[in-house]
């Protein structure tokens, strides 16, 4: 199981700013190991962010997203204490969900 995401959500004016740092290798499938064998691709494919159960961002990623991906965006509304839930699924079908309250 991958390490937990670091999520920070804070109210900025009438919006909520969400910043996420995920822990993932994001292996491209282009690199070779010491023996010259290609290291298979392993990367997050989809990310879903919800605010109190309603989707505020859906992302599709390829292997060109940097290792330990960072994501930041804003949405209208949101109040202190509201629940932000983030789920990612990688190309091996592994998934992780973390949640935080808007602070």
């Amino acid at each position, binding site marked *: 199981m991958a390490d937990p995401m670091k999520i920070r959500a804070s109210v900025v004016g009438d919006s909520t700013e969400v910043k996420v740092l995920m822990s993932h290798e994001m292996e491209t499938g282009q690199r070779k190991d010491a023996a010259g064998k290609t290291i298979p691709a392993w990367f997050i494919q989809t990310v*879903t962010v919800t605010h109190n159960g309603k989707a505020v961002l859906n992302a*599709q990623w390829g292997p*060109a997203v940097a290792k330990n991906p960072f994501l930041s965006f804003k949405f209208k509304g949101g109040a202190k204490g509201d629940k932000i839930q983030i789920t990612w*699924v990688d190309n091996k079908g592994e998934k992780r969900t973390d949640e935080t309250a808007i602070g």
Partner: protein
Amino acid sequence: MSTTRRDVLKRGGGVTLLGLLAAAGWVTPETAAAQAWNKNAFDAKTMDETMKALGGGAPAQSKDIAFVSTPDIAENGAVVPVGVTSAIPKTESIAILIEKNPNMMAAAFDIPPGTDPSVSTRVKMGQSSNIYALVKADGKYYVAAKEIKVTLGGCGG
């Protein structure tokens, strides 16, 4: 039913092949249920192929798309911050494409109503290249480009 050694081997071989396919990203057993991942778009190597996979026509150049906190020169191609903000009304999605990467599409974001048409992330770049911000708004595609020089490549090893 009698199970011969040959059958067992065949079955075993089949399982391994599936496993390999899954590892290579060709067969994604569980991901489809959660959210579709547009494999064709991520496999595309040119702008034309990408647009075809997305089901759109040639995108129009737009000055209403801006790159924010995106460097002109990236010292490390493995971690290049890219932020895209669209001022086009009814922006539905934002995609980041890197011209000289093995596959152009790096990331695509669906922007539901209520979410600001502005996203920031970090991408990998194999070499100095143009990057494109592709915005879908009200069913039409718009694009803006920016050149980023990379001092140290982020792909290969």
